[in-house]
């Protein structure tokens, strides 16, 4: 005998609410006066029940491992991008360092010029 899963109960419950909803809608659209107001209320109550079942499904969809996997994949990519950006900024740093060395050489040459070595 096949095992009954929670989703089987959900499907049955949804079907039950659906049948009642459809019948109520048909009657509501044809009714007038007080009966129309009562049927509207009944329809909205049934709709709220259907939505409660749908919210259960939505929560289950949100827990899908595929979503967690997608989060991990995108997070890994963002880390890779950050690494690539860091490597690019090192080009600017290297030039700054070279500039500093030129500054020192400049000073040394100044001293050499003053003492008349060259």
């Amino acid at each position, binding site marked *: 005998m096949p095992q009954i899963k929670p989703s089987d109960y959900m499907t049955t419950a949804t079907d039950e609410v659906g049948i009642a909803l459809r019948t109520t809608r048909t009657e509501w659209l044809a009714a007038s006066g007080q009966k129309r107001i009562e049927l509207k209320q009944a329809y909205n109550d049934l709709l709220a029940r259907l939505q409660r079942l749908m919210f259960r499904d939505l929560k289950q969809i949100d827990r899908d491992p595929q979503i967690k996997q997608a989060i991990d994949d995108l997070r890994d990519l963002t880390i890779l991008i950050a690494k690539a950006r860091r490597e690019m900024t090192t080009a600017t740093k290297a030039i700054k360092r070279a500039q500093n060395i030129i500054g020192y050489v400049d000073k040394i040459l100044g001293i050499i*010029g003053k003492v008349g070595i060259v």
Partner: protein
Amino acid sequence: MIRSNRLNIVCILVVGFLSACSPYIYKNDVKKFAEGVDQATGAFNGLHDRVRKIYTDQELNLLATQGEPLRISEECTGVTTFDSQGNPGQLVADTRCLSMWSEWRSTDKHQRGDPPECPKNTSIAVREGRLAYYDFEALGKEESQRCELGVKTVDKKVDPRPLKEAEVLLVETPRLLQVLRAYGYSLAAIAGAEDRDALQSSVDEAKQAINGLAARVDKITGDDKQTLTVSVGLVGDLVGTALIAGLDYRRYKALQNVTAAADPSIQRAAMLLSQVSMPMVTIELQNAGAVYLDKVSVTNDRPKNQDWRAAYANARKARGAYLDLFNIGPSAVFQSMGDAHKELTKALQDSKRQRDALQESLQDFISKANSAYETFTQETAIEE
């Protein structure tokens, strides 16, 4: 001189090759994509907020119907008064202990005796008579756990889950949106010009320094023609341009590689987000549909003249509100986001490709994301 000319030619060729691949022509496209992701995220969050309110309302209504009394742990507020064993809570105990230490210190050294024995639950620093700042924040976190609101379970314990469950709808999907936004921003940062400007300014400063150095050497060696200064200036310009072009090339390659590697993940994320949006849009559609049915059924009461005209106008409006939701839901926005990213990836892979398809898909994405954002960040979609 011949060697210098050869160097110049090599530099020109290198620069020419590198500058053919600039990421900056895609700067605005990437920025638009990131902005679209931002708007799409806002639209999704707006829809989520609205649907969550409906959900919370229904869950709390159910709990209210059951009328189950709210419960908290007996330990709640114990920290500010006395705990459930009858001992002073930490704040009362610490106040007592501070006073005991003060009294001990005020007493003559020879008559003080042993340090005070503070009550149970006194915090360590206070017990040891040390000066320290009081950490109310940490205490508040502990108290928030102890004071969790819940309902009574069969074994008379407090179960906060039904109330927590009623407040939270989606958990994982909002996290997916966060990483998607982070991706959009990172992509825009690669295509952006900030690092390039910094490099340009460093190169300019370095060129100045090199020119100054060459002029000094020319002066020291007594070269009136300033041979070194002229050569260095020329080569410096080319090297500077080559460095910038080199950075551009690396950025371009980075954009190319990242978008190509990311595209399958972006397509998957877009489809997942579209799927999660669907039941939420359905809830909104159901409510908008019920309003439409109501506006139509009003005419069963046979209103006359102006009332009938007003009912007709209301029914048309409700119909529009109901049907519009089919076109502006985030599902279509995420599909459009996937398409825009695909076009961006293709354009970056082949720089000779016409950018029209990219522009078109970005425009479609931005316009759908904006509409969805405007719709779903409003308080309610349906006018009763």
